[in-house]
């Protein structure tokens, strides 16, 4: 084997390693390998307070991810936050329209996500429909504030 061919082979090895590394970065390290890339349908939900919910936060039913938060905006007319959920197409027509959407926290200080509790209705959620019953995020300061307020009320009552 002559020197020219050897150089060509080494450059080939180099290029192959480079492309393999890029491929690994894409598939193993980033979300490309795990992300759902199919069709989505959109459902809105209104919350009094979304806490720390962010776009791309997971939407789960029974703990299984069925979609992602697509958009969050504020509606100045009824002073509430409008959250658009993108739900995977395979669940179209399988989620009752009286389902209950609540903002939950993964662990004590973890990321916030949306959990959907299925209702009992015969009709189902479609593209553009709205989830009527929602529960806001738990804001730690408010809970502590209520707790302290409740304690002081209790103290005032027994006196």
């Amino acid at each position, binding site marked *: 084997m002559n020197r020219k061919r050897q*150089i*060509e082979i*080494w*450059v080939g*090895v*180099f*290029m192959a*390693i*480079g*492309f393999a*590394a*890029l491929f*690994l*970065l*894409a598939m*193993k*390290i*980033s*979300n*490309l*390998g*795990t*992300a759902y890339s199919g069709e989505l349908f959109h459902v809105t939900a209104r919350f009094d307070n979304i806490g720390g919910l962010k776009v791309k936060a997971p939407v789960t039913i029974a703990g299984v991810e069925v979609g992602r938060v697509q958009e969050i905006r504020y509606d100045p007319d009824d002073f509430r936050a409008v959250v658009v959920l993108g739900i995977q197409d395979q669940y179209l027509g399988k989620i009752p329209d009286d389902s209950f959407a609540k903002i939950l926290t993964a662990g004590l200080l973890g990321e916030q996500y949306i959990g959907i509790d299925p209702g009992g209705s015969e009709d189902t959620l479609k593209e553009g429909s709205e989830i009527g019953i929602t529960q806001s995020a738990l804001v730690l300061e408010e809970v502590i504030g209520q707790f302290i307020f409740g304690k002081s009320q209790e103290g005032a009552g027994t006196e």
Partner: protein
Amino acid sequence: MLNLLGDLGAWGLQALTRLGRAHLLLLAMLRGLLEILRRPRLLVDQLYSVGVLTLLIIGVAGLFVGMVLALQGYNVLSRFGGETALGFMVAASLVRELGPVLTALLFAGRAGSALTAEIGLMKATEQLSGLEMMAVNPEHRVLAPRFFAGLIAVPMLAALFSCLGVLGGWMVGGGLLGVDQAAFWNGMQDGIDFNDDIINGVIKSLVFGFVCTWIAIFQGYDCVPTSEGVSRATTRTVVHSSLAVLGLDFVLTALMFG
């Protein structure tokens, strides 16, 4: 006073003409792309000396940087009970910052200095003029293949650096420190976005490869053709490339993640 002003003016004009020469050289090299398409062999030879010979240092550096990141990250994260975020931390810092930047710095030291010295010596021994005498354009024939080889090699080396870094982090985190394997990989895949992180990292390393190779080739081509001139040009290559990479990294990070 007038003398001082004159000196300042002369210095400014000199800097501007250097900048102008650098851009003319860049244009000439870009035009050399046609020559490369006709003779891909030239590019392959340069990819060997710029890319293949840099593989070892990049691989070893990546592995150790990943291992150190995992060790230090574990120390901080375990205070808050957040060891499960270790994979994300290691991968994010590698893909977004350390991979492209450290690869470019090592590339400037390993390949950039070699490019400058080689081209500077060609100039000092009048090989470049010799080519011109034979009606061969040295900018197309000698400089352009080196430039495009650098442009191709740096993103690949950066990707390899990040991959091996994650592997090193996983070896230390999963093996030595006993972080949960599933949490390590899931946290990483959840946190790293393909478009935001991987693509931006590749764009960064492309820019760094462009700048580093350009500086190296220009310093060699523009050096004073003596042994002292070549040695100074080599030093300047490493200093200028490193500063340019670090400065550009700030600008790019502010644009991409700001």
